[in-house]
């Protein structure tokens, strides 16, 4: 049973708690990005995303982002959800996750402007949601308590500069410059039946663990995660490789010498089996990692905790001891330092 806790109370769990009830699905791999679907029979329909319930989003002052949940379910605002609107209004993003009670209206004055030198407030309405690029999320989380709408401008400027985009403090310049590439990420990866989460890898490195309360919730946030959050990281990987187009051939390739269709068939099956095992092994390797949870608040009987570990930093939302939502991007230090730990490449 959930107990009332004080702010800044900490708890230690393991990543396995985040993945409880999930199995690794078949690895999907396109170019620099790989996704291991997390599949589960557990489906908690009590929670909806802003996309699912068509929530009205608005700003009332610079740094204050509001959500109107007109549904009868509790709304979980994904960690670092953001809105880039075609209005004379300043684009904003959350610096953390949020929970809005059923039929509730909630304003977060800790939000960040992601479009410097643009005035105006976002009119109440339903807009396409994004999740901040991976590189910005750690910064945003560190500044989650600050009531300063300019707090991400410098980070956005550095991010843009790294990707060769001009535009100090304007995230929309990045989105515009890489629209085609970002769209392709959405196109390349498909949700599988029962999927409630994913472990995302870019350029062979684990870059995030995502878990949603239900399949429907997952379907609604996946395009934002794969597009802006993790897609941006794949673009960074491409940049790091000298803008080389990603190799579209499979990572584990068929041998050149194959004598018959029977042999080809068994090779394809064998590689698939190895890839499946690799996916499972990747998940297994993560299970024991300790995760420190720092209690933030309780809303509508669920609690929000900020989670940190050696390799990940993000937030989880719990109903009692049960984790219903988690977003754990890898820390930038981990992304940079990771040597790929997957199973040995397939060999004949």
């Amino acid at each position: 049973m959930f107990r009332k806790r004080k702010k800044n109370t900490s708890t230690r769990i393991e990543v396995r708690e985040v993945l409880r009830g999930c199995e690794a699905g078949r690895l999907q791999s396109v170019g620099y990005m790989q996704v291991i679907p997390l599949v589960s029979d557990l489906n908690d329909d009590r929670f909806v995303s802003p996309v699912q319930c068509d929530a009205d989003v608005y700003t009332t002052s610079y740094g204050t982002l509001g959500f109107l949940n007109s549904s009868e379910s509790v709304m979980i605002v994904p960690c670092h959800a953001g809105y880039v609107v075609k209005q004379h209004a300043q684009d904003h993003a959350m610096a953390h996750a949020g929970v809005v009670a059923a039929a509730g209206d909630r304003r977060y004055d800790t939000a960040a402007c992601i479009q410097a030198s643009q005035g105006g407030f976002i009119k109440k309405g339903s807009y396409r949601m994004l999740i901040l690029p991976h590189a910005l999320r750690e910064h945003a989380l560190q500044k989650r308590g600050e009531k300063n709408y300019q707090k991400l401008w410098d980070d956005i400027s550095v991010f843009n500069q790294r990707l060769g985009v001009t535009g100090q403090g304007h995230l929309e310049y990045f989105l515009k410059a890489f629209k085609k590439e970002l769209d392709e990420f959405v196109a390349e990866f498909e949700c599988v039946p029962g999927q409630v989460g994913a472990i995302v890898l870019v350029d062979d490195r684990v870059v995030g663990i995502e878990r949603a309360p239900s399949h429907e919730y997952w379907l609604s946030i996946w395009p934002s995660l794969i597009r802006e959050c993790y897609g941006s990281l794949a673009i960074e990987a491409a940049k790091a490789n000298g803008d080389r187009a990603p190799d579209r051939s499979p990572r584990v390739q068929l041998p050149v010498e194959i004598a018959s269709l029977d042999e080809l068939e068994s090779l394809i099956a064998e590689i698939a089996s190895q890839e499946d095992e690799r996916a499972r092994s990747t998940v297994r390797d993560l299970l024991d990692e300790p995760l420190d949870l720092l209690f933030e608040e309780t809303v509508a009987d669920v609690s929000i905790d900020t989670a940190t570990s050696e390799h990940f930093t993000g937030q989880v939302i719990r109903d009692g001891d049960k984790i219903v939502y988690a977003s754990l991007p890898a820390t930038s230090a981990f992304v940079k330092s990771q040597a790929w730990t997957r199973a040995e490449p397939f060999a004949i």
Partner: protein
Amino acid sequence: MQNLIATQVDDRKQAFGLTETQRELLPLAFGSFLDSVATATGRGTFYNSREEQAAAVEAAHHDLFDIDRDVYTAALMLPGVTDYSRQIGVRRLLQTTRDGGILPAEFEAAAMTLLVRGLPTQRMLKLFGMLRRDRVNNARTRRLILSEILGAGGLEFWAVKYREKLRVAMTHAWGRRTASILRSVLAKSPDERTEKETQIVRQNVTRFVRDDAAGRVEQCVRFVLGDETGATLGRLAAYRDAKSDFDRGAVLPPETMEGLRSRYHKDRTSAEVLELTKSQLTTGQKIAVQRKAEQSGVEVEFDPAKYDAVRLYVYTFEMGMTDEIRLALRNKAETAAAGLPVQFERVGVLIDASQSMIGHDTQARRPIATALALRDLLSATADDAVAITSDGRAIDSYELVEPSGDTSLAAGLVQLLKSDPDVVFVLSDGYENAPAGRFGETVAAVRRIGIHTPIHQFTPVFAAESQGVRTLSDSVVAMPVSKPEAIGLGLLKALIESDVERGVAALFGMTKVAGYLPAA
């Protein structure tokens, strides 16, 4: 593949006077254009938003139009080109002045009339709305709008069903002032009109209609312009009277009567409207209202034989398969297959049954429905056919396949090839992810083994980000197809890529504009 399609083109080369530059640019532009017009619908797909689709389609149209407007015009007339593509094609032709082209000017005028007449009414009116929005209002446009509306046999029905759209289109053609004058003049009987008024009516209305239809058309125009008084034509009078007498609406289209009900008969239900007007349902509506009819307890009969196979599959996903529909699908597949010039002994069909084949919400399940209709057609071309899904399930013809999961086609391809088919058809949107590239690698391995069974990819989805259709392998040509009868487009694309002059000749041959062709 080339053997699959019969064209009306002989081997003699036609002299079309294509320049070197045109010859050079045409294959790429034509390929991209065909990919677009065969699949684009102006709606979003699973992967691309509506705006992205529209931008990519515009680019494909622009590129081919710039090379030669007659090739462009003929390409719009190909079987299998979507209505949406025709709409934006006609708009482009009308908004640009003819300057050059490899055929006589009459060809374009005749082609445009055919294109507009081939559109379903609501799409024709939508086209006219597009012309208004884009301020296209030259003499050709005005003549086209007025002749197609005023000369139509079903104008009375259109007048009650599409009253506002007609008013907008005609007012665009006439101008507000003339429309206002016409309304006043038409209120008078022909005997009461002055010479000038008679001339105005002749100039703007009756010159577009047969003499014996003038009175009927004048009444319809009055009605469309908002004057219901004195209407004697059955439907026009029924519309006026149904405002006070619900039962008079029996001859009105259901949606028109539903509009009157919601305003004048709030105590009556939608189910009563459906029961009252079910005899007025169009063929398209009869299948579209089945769910509503079932919920309302109203029996609306529809004949599956009157619908194309893709539509039947979309319907079946929603309402379930019946023996009657299965029989209609079988008949359609066998008829279409009989029209193809070849028969195979053994065909292999691999269906991408992944999540993305569901398509966009606005046209849910259209990609998979197209794939299933193609499966039936291709299977019907053979004495023996093997069809499997991307997850390895063997499926029979006329059976539904629910899309889900990731895309892995390599194992299925090998499985099919082991059954030793004459040809393998892969029906896929071209997005592979488990893992990407495995299919292409497998095709290469198969060729190295020494198996050269032809492998073709048919793609029911336009991919905005690649400005065409997505290919699964560099060595397999992906061909766009929105309905089974349009598989000829694939041949044409291949032909123009290999021989521009022959390809252009084939294009004009397929579009039946031989009367305008230069002498061979």
